[in-house]
Every structure is written in C-alpha cells, then in structure tokens.
C-alpha cells in the first residue's frame, strides 16, 4: 500500500513537472489584429509579470497596453503597419526576465519591449537593451537609478511614469502653495525605500521653498498602534503632515491622528491609492491629499474616453493607474515608431529621446534627453469626509 502510494506521488510529481515545462515559453500573439507575419507588421515585445508575486501590477499594465495596441491597429496601425505583440510572462522572476528579453531581442526581433512593471525587472534587461540596440520602456518602474545608473545614462531605457522622488517634490510645492503650509512634519515608513525616497525629496523641496520641517518621525510596516508617535508629533506646531507609505498603515495613521485631534492636512504619495484606505480610515479620511499618476475621477475628456473604452472591453472594471500607464506606454511606443526614420531599435530610440508634448491619459510629457524621464504633471487627489473632493494636475 505504502509503495503504491509513493509511486502515485512520484507519478503525480513528474506530471506536474512536465506540465510546468510545457507551460513556460509559448509565445502568444495577443492583439495581432489578424496580420500575417510579413513586411506589413511591426513587432513589439510585451514582457510582463503575468504570474508571481507582483502579477497584479504586471497583468494590469499588460492589459492596458493590449487595449492600446488594439486601438492603434483598428485605426490603421503605425505608418500602415499593424502592431504585432509578442507576449511573454516573466513569472515575476528577474532571471526569467533576462532570458525572455534576450529571446525577444534576438529571435523575435522586436523593435521595442514594453515592461516589466517593476524596477527590478527592468534592471534585469538594461545590459541586453544596449547590446542589441532595442529600447525597453516601462510604464511603472519608478526607481530613481533605473535610467541613469552611477551618473551614466542607460541609452535604451525609457519610462512613461515619473520617478519616486518627484512625488515628494510635487507634494512639497503643493503643500506650500495650495495648502499654505509653512511648517511640516514628516512621518515615514522606514521599512520601504520608496517611502524614504519620497520623504527625502519632500524635505529637500519644502525647505528650499522657505518652509521648515519641525520633526521627522518614523514607523515600520505592519505596525498598528501609532498613538504614541502621533501624540509626540501633536506636541509640535505644524501646518501639514507628510506621511509617505502604504495604505495598510496609512488608513490607521489617518484614523488615529484625527482621533487624537490632529487636524492638519495629511499628505503622501501613490501608496495611498486603494479602496482599503477609505475602509480603514472611515470618516476620518478628511483633508488628505496625495500624488498619483492618474485618477479615475478625472474629468479630462481623454481620461473619460479611456475609462469608457476600458469598461467596455474589460467587463465594466474601473481602470487603475497601472492600466492607464500600460496604455500610455503602448501609445508612446507606437508614436515613437511613427516618428522614427525606420522601424529599427536605434531609430526608435532616437525618436523616443526627442519626444515633445506626447499626450496620454496620465498626462502630457516631454522626454528629458539627459535622464530619459518624462517631464510630466502629477495628479493630486484630495479627500474630504471619506470622499474624493479634489482631482487636479500639478507640477
């Protein structure tokens, strides 16, 4: 009996292993638009985290990009050629990303790669992009050192989102000019580089703008009791609080701060973006402002058109920032191919570098030739009594 069982187990294991193998690298032409592989298509790689621990980002961005590709093809493609997407799944694994990027560049011969969504994934293909002269573009990799590493520009690396530190800078300006803040306190999540980057940038810009930062306090992720540190901050005089971090803790911080009688505006970055924030903070979510790439409540006609089209395609779901960024990234790549002298990696890269006034749903931007970062506006989202009360572009 025992022996049969072990054979069964072994059999089952090897079957799963086989299934795992066959599931790996089958390319799928997603939004091919029915174009045959020939001279009338231009191939673009779509390399995203479709499974694994950051799959929710990767899938969202990939879906946004696919939707954009369909729209472009329906409108006749670029320079008369349809876009043919070659899609692979990085499984949220950087080694896999490098392998697949090499495959896209050398075997599939794509003119550009869109993705992955994370900075770690992008960094895994920087070297390959330079070797093979294929531009790589991410819609959401926000690490400051991605496009410029140790003071040297990575020539083939682009992104359509602003960098982490920019959010801190924008919020510092917003607090000073729109919230009339002279004194700020900072409470940051020290377990995340993202929050630290935002806090440093805010600190620098706020002081440069003539304000003072009265205190800087810290917390760690997964903490639930912030009363002690908030009571300490309450002893200070300040006009605004800058609290970069993620929504799980922020909801509690906002709630506990308001319960302790702290009435100053609470501000932060895109880590606030989640329906959970309102759930955790409840009615305490008032006078809260954060920077984001995009807002689904924006009334800009370009944004509303995108949201309507998205809802039609994806079962009435509301697009998130990642969808919008993926969508813009595809449009940006198509736009660059259109402006390029020829559909080769080097020419497309040159066209990307020269981008001026590209207009997408997450804003209008130029590409800064020195850093390859887009120069764009952030969206400020403000809450009053648990509801969104402010949506405006600011830079």
């Amino acid at each position: 009996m025992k022996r049969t069982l072990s054979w069964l187990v072994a059999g089952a294991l090897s079957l799963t292993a086989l299934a795992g193998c066959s599931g790996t690298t089958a390319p799928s032409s997603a939004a091919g638009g029915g174009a045959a592989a020939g001279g009338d298509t231009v191939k673009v790689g779509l390399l995203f985290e479709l499974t694994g621990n950051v799959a929710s980002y990767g899938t969202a961005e990939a879906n946004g990009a696919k939707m954009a590709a369909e729209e472009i093809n329906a409108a006749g493609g670029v320079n008369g050629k349809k876009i043919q997407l070659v899609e692979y799944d990085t499984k949220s694994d950087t080694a896999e990303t490098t392998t697949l990027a090499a495959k896209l560049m050398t075997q599939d011969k794509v003119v550009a790669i869109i993705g992955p969504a994370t900075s770690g994934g992008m960094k895994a293909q920087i070297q390959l992009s330079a070797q093979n002269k294929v531009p790589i573009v991410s819609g959401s990799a926000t690490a400051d050192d991605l496009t410029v590493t140790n003071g040297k520009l990575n020539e083939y690396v682009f992104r359509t989102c602003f960098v982490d530190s920019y959010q801190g800078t924008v919020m510092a300006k917003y607090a000073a000019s729109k919230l009339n803040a002279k004194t700020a306190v900072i409470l940051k999540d020290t377990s995340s580089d993202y929050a630290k980057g935002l806090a440093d940038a805010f600190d620098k810009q706020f002081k440069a703008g003539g304000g003072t930062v009265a205190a800087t306090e810290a917390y760690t992720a997964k903490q639930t009791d912030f009363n002690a540190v908030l009571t300490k901050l309450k002893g200070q005089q300040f006009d605004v609080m800058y609290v970069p971090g993620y929504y799980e803790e922020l909801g509690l911080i906002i709630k506990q701060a308001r319960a302790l009688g702290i009435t100053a505006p609470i501000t932060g970055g895109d880590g606030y973006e989640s329906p959970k924030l309102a759930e955790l903070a409840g009615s305490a979510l008032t006078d809260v402002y954060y920077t984001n790439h995009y807002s689904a409540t924006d009334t800009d006609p370009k944004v509303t058109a995108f949201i309507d089209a998205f809802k039609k395609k994806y079962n009435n779901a509301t697009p998130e920032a990642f969808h919008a960024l993926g969508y813009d990234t595809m449009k940006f790549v198509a736009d660059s191919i259109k402006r390029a002298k020829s559909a080769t990696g080097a020419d497309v890269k040159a066209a990307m570098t020269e981008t001026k006034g590209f207009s997408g749903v997450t804003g209008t931007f130029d590409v800064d030739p020195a850093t390859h970062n887009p120069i764009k506006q952030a969206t400020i989202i403000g809450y009053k009594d648990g509801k969104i009360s402010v949506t405006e572009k600011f830079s």
Partner: protein
Amino acid sequence: MDQLAQQLINGLSLGSIYALIALGYTMVYGIIQLINFAHGDVYMVGAYVGFASMAILGLGVFESLALAMVTCMILGVVIERVAYKPLRNSTRIAVLITAIGVSLLLEYVMLYFVGAAVRSYPPLPDYFNAQFAVGGVVISAKSLIIIGVSVALMIGLQFIVQKTRIGKAMRAVSQDADAARLMGINVDNTISFTFALGSALAGAAGVLVGIYYNTINPLMGIMPGLKAFVAAVFGGIGLIPGALIGGYFIGVTETLVSGYFSSLLQDAVVFAILILVLIFKPAGLLGKNVREKV
C-alpha cells in the same frame, strides 16, 4: 504634562490587550508548564470571529465579543485535546514544538480561507466614537471601553480562580497534578478548563483590538503574542497578578519609548526587557526563586 498623560492613556489601552493575552499564557504555563505559542493565534481567530459576527451576522459589539469568547473557548479546548493532551508525558521540547506547529497551522489555515489582505471592522455605534477632552488630553470612548472590558474580565477571572470549586481545582493541579488526582480532582478536565478560560480572554482581546485599531489580518497574532509572552515572563510566569502587571508595564513602556525616543526602538526595548528579566530575575517580578527538586 498633557503629552505624558496622553501617552499614559495610550499605553494603558495597549497594555490591556497585552494583559488579556498574557493571562492565557500564564495560566496555561502555571498548570502544565507549557508555553502555548498558539495563544497569539487564538487571539487572531477571536478577532476574525468578531468581524464575521458583526459584518456578516450583523450582531452588536457585545454579542460579538461574547460569541468570539465562546468560539475561542471551544478552539482552545480542541487544541489542547488534539495537540497537547497526547503529549502530556512527552518531553517539554516536544510539546513546545507542537505548540509552534499549531500556531503556524492556525495562521496559514486562516490565510488560506480569509486571504492575506487586511480587513477592517464595520462602522461602530456612535457611543464608541465619542471623545472627551480633559485639558489637552483626548480620551476616546474606545480607550475607556477597552480598559473597562479588560478590567471587568480580569476581575471575573480572579473570582473564578479564587472563589469557585473549579478555580480551587485549577490551583490544586498547578501545585501538584499527581496529588490533585489522588484527591479526586479530574486533572484532564481542569486543564481543559484552563485552556478554555485563557482562550476566551484571548478571543476577547482579539475583538477589542479589532474595535480599537479597526484592522485585522491573519498574521496579527504573532507580535502581540510574543509581547504578551514577555509580559507574562516579566510579571512571573504562572502568576495571574504577574501577567496583569506585566501586560500594563509592557504597554506603557512601549508607548513611552516611542513617544519620547523613537518608535523604531519600541520592539527592541520590549525584548531587551525580556533578556534582562531572564538574566537578573528569571522568576519574574512577583516570582519566588524555588529551588528545583532533584
């Protein structure tokens, strides 16, 4: 001065939670010399039962509190009967490892069923959200309720342990299980009853935390569980008044450390206290040094 008073209130609310959990640790240790590491997770289950009862069954806060206590009571007895009783005569390390196993089992079974995302308690009746300002100090009704309920439960516990027959049996078993058996006490039932009491208190703490912080997740029991353990050791493990003092001491210390030094140091200080206590007064604040009989 206002700030100090405010910090003390913050500390007492937090300390009440630690004290409630620490009581369960200390009672179980007192009776079978087992550090029940699954105790923090019973507290987590209590928080989820309270959540389900309020959000799904639509019961009130105090009904939910009672339901969570009863559920945890049953859970505690089941854990004891299934996981610990068969190992009653094994080495202590075997039981300890089983306890860690039960703890991980509860965490990840819960993670499987409810998911890793945090959940928030449904909105509470208005009197929970009331606040009083005394000078510059803000006292929320929630803090008062959390402290009040904890103190009431502790008084109830003290009554059960000191004034009832089963309490007397518990004390007898904790002194000498064999002698108690010879006196006709049903030792197994007494041990189960101890688990039931301790787990009920942990369940109550879970619901109170859900109300107070409005956030629960399947791994929420780990840190408070460890800190309550420190509280129990600090007060003298096995001693009920020790757990009370330890719980409030740890809560207030933690708050004062993050209020006056840095919030990043609070956990470090708590565990440094554990180490110091173990070095200088291993029996805890109220414990007597008893020489081990050979």
